[in-house]
């Protein structure tokens, strides 16, 4: 009897033990009510839980009793929690659907006008490495961008020209801060380069229109360069080029790094050896000193400082049309200083604060014949922005900015001196609304005020992007853009109003499987363009009477997997632009806006030779120019521009790179326009001289050696 009782008790006890667990089952769905596998479902504070299967269902037992919290968790989805009562009876929980969080990784991005160069995986057209390995670029940032859609090559200028706009319409920024005189000063027909070394930047953002309200004072294009974060190691980099050389030293620790660089360049010896088209008295020469430092602060912020100072010059004889002899003597001396510092911190509560200040100071001292012209330009830009992520669907970027621009020019002999100082104030706000991860809408507003022309303006901008297929998306962007006229005009007429443009851009982007296809159609209108009397060298009475437009299409195709170890991209841009500007009394096709532009860049790696061979070919249908013998403005067109460049990079040792590049291998005599005599000769004809290339070819040989404890480090690591 007792024995039986004992067994009965045991039986119950066993049952109690079995029933002291609560079975929980259920199903997880996504937003579209499809089963969601891989979700972690568990009782908070315990190890009990399960993972949903292919059909979205799950089932588990828990020892927990009483009121408990049931958690549904999956990376990339918004977690959900429910209160349940565990009383040892099975729970069949209702179906739960999880909403996917919109993140930078999975959301559509606005690609209208934009071309990003970074290591990030999405919407990238160019990688940082491409900038130095594009043969025609010769290591210049701008040179690489000239192979991208929407740009045109103007070989005797070197600057970036975007969609029928002149070079001043491209705003250049480092870490969001404006850079004044980003190009080196030059004279005659000798093309310029960007002052900044591509090694300084971890990524670039280049837009040919319809860009964010964050960028002001840029009518056609924004080029944003993002400086590097903390260097991973201490090293020394020695570079020896056929044109000069330099040394760079980096000291690095976990929390901070500093790089100091010095370079000396002199084209003189090279120009002695290789035949030049320009009659040099003293070839271009320069030195520069640069410092860049990054520091991780104790509070989690990142502080960056960059400073650069340089000096350079050149002396040449410029032949004049219809005049015998060497022509006029030009002597240019330049001094340039740039400094900037910025601080950025992301807070836990969704705010990201950025504050920074930049200062550029450029001084040109030019002798043209016997006339001494001195120009000095100063630009100070202070900026404070706050980005707030309200949720994964709404974020706002707002900021205030102050720009101080001072300009002074003097003609010493004539005792002419003029200057101005302008204080500009800006505010902007821009809101991103993700309606789903496939659809984003952005609207922004930028307001500005200039003390010099007493103008206050508002620029609204909007864009949206929609993902049409797994790898394809369309975007549309539009807005108004304002820019104060260039310094040489403002100093003559401080009352000049802003130059204005309206953009409308439709873009299709396909990216995936090592392939990028980008097609874009655009329309841009210009208002208040500056026109003047007299010659471009000496403008008189500038006024805002010009108007114009540019419309066209671009195509870009990049393929990196079709042929093993080969990467290539092809670009075609069609631009139809007419504008009344500068000295022109009617709407004309600008000389810097050829209609048809084509380029192809290809790189092939030879692993067994430890080499990379690069090829780039660019061509366009010729530049418009005015032949005064024929009457009308812009009545003629030069022959087609063509340039084939080759480069070869060799890595014999991990820390040594030898690079050799030749531009215009075929030696084509490209002409960018013609310079005409002011007055006709005795037979009534205006004589002319072609504005051509500085030399038929350009050769560059460089040896780059990296010294570091880690023997595998090389200069490419700087990219």
């Amino acid at each position: 009897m007792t024995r039986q009782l004992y067994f009965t008790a045991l039986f119950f006890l066993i049952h109690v033990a079995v029933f002291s667990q609560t079975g929980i089952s259920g199903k997880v769905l996504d937003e579209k009510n499809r089963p969601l596998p891989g979700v972690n479902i568990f009782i908070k504070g315990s190890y009990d839980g399960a993972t949903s299967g292919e059909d979205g269902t799950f089932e588990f037992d828990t020892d927990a009793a009483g009121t408990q919290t049931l958690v549904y968790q999956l990376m990339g989805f918004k977690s959900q929690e429910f209160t349940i009562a565990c009383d040892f009876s099975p729970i069949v929980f209702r179906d739960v659907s999880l909403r996917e969080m919109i993140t930078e990784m999975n959301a559509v991005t606005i690609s209208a006008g934009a071309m990003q160069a970074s290591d990030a995986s999405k919407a990238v057209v160019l990688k940082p490495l491409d900038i130095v390995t594009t043969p025609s670029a010769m290591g210049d940032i701008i040179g690489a961008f000239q192979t991208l859609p929407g740009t045109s090559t103007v070989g005797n200028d070197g600057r970036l020209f975007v969609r029928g706009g002149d070079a001043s319409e491209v705003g250049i920024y480092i870490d969001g801060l404006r850079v004044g005189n980003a190009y080196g000063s030059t004279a005659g027909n000798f093309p310029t380069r960007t002052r900044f070394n591509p090694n300084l930047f971890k990524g670039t953002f280049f837009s040919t229109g319809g860009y964010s309200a964050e960028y002001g004072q840029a009518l056609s294009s924004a080029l944003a360069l993002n400086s590097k974060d903390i260097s991973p190691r201490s090293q020394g980099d020695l570079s020896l080029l056929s044109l000069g050389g330099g040394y760079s030293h980096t000291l690095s620790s976990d929390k901070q790094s500093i790089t100091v660089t010095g370079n000396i360049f002199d084209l003189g010896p090279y120009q002695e050896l290789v035949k030049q088209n320009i009659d040099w008295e003293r070839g271009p020469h320069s030195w520069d000193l640069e410092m860049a430092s990054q520091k991780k602060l104790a509070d989690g912020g990142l502080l960056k400082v960059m400073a650069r100072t340089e000096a350079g010059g050149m002396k040449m004889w410029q032949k004049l049309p219809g005049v015998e002899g060497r022509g006029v003597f030009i002597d240019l001396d330049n001094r340039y200083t740039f400094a900037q510092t910025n601080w950025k911190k992301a807070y836990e509560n969704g705010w990201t604060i950025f504050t920074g200040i930049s200062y550029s100071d450029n001084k040109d001292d030019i002798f043209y014949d016997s006339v001494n012209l001195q120009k000095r330009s100063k630009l100070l830009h202070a900026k404070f922005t706050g980005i707030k992520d309200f949720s994964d669907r709404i974020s706002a970027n707002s900021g205030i900015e102050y720009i101080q621009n001072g300009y002074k020019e003097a003609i010493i002999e004539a005792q002419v001196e003029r200057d101005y100082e302008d204080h500009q104030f800006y505010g902007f706000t821009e809101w991103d609304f993700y309606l789903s991860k496939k659809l984003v809408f952005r609207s922004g507003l930028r307001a500005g005020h200039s003390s010099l022309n007493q103008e206050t303006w508002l620029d609204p901008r909007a864009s949206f992007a929609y993902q049409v297929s797994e790898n394809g998306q369309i975007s549309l962007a539009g807005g108004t853009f304002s820019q104060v006229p260039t310094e040489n005009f403002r100093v003559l007429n401080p009352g000049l109003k802003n130059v204005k443009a309206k953009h409308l851009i439709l873009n299709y982007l396909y990216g995936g499987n090592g392939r990028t296809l980008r097609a874009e159609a655009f329309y841009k209108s210009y208002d208040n363009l500056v026109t003047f009397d007299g010659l471009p060298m000496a403008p008189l009475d500038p006024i805002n009477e010009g108007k114009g437009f540019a419309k066209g299409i671009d195509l870009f195709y990049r393929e990196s997997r079709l042929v093993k170890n080969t990467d290539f991209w092809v670009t075609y841009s069609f631009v139809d632009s007419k504008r009344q500007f500068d000295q022109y009394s009617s709407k004309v096709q600008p000389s810097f806006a050829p209609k048809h532009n084509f380029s192809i860049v290809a790189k092939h790696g030879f692993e067994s030779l430890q080499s990379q061979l690069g090829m780039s070919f660019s061509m366009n249908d010729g530049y418009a120019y005015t032949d005064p013998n024929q009457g009308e403005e812009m009545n003629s067109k030069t022959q087609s521009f063509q340039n084939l460049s080759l480069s070869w990079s060799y890595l014999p040792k991990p820390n040594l790179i030898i690079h050799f590049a030749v531009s215009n291998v075929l030696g084509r005599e490209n002409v960018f326009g013609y310079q005409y005599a002011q007055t006709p000769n005795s037979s009534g004809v205006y004589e002319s001289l072609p504005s051509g290339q500085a030399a038929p070819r350009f050769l560059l040989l460089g040896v780059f050696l990296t010294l570091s404890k880690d023997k595998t480090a090389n200069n490419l690591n700087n990219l």
Partner: protein
Amino acid sequence: MLTLALLFMWITFAKASDPAYEKAMAKQIAAIETIQTLEQSQQVSNSFLRIAEAQPEEWLPLYYAGLLQIEAAFRFDVDQDEAFEQALGYIEKAKKIAPDNSELTALEGYAVMGKISVDPGSRGQSMTPQAMQLYNKAISLDRENPRAVLLMAQMELGMSQFFGSGPEKACGMARMGSELLRKEKEKITESYILPTWGQRLASQFEKVCQ
């Protein structure tokens, strides 16, 4: 000497104060070996995440969740970039619990190496130093960590192949790593839950380094 031994035992006991945690961990660590499919990997990974949620003071469950993400990215058909980012997310969280931990630092290097492998052509140049730096740091934090040494050896091997130089340096490191792994094995008991993986990595070198 005895006091030292007692102290050591006391530390071991103090650490082993939660048998339920140890048991749960040991069970999942054993389950790692049985993973054949993505689904199974997810199940084990989720179990580690549950333990991590319940024991917010422990870094190990997050470590294993991160390791599983990395291995899943190499083994199964998943969005690799997303998986490596997830792994880095877990590692970041674990580093807040245990800063300057050699195993976590080595694992971070492993995740970075994974990211490089997605697009070596363009990422290799900029991210290789980052991975190397992490391995260096992991080794300096614990000279006996076989995984840090073996992962670095793997990186060295990849670079020697790229530059066409010999694998001697990588092989030397791999030998060192294997030796450390052997030493580590002597410490392993049934309740040992710290990372012990690396054998497969070590055997990869056997062919190359003959």
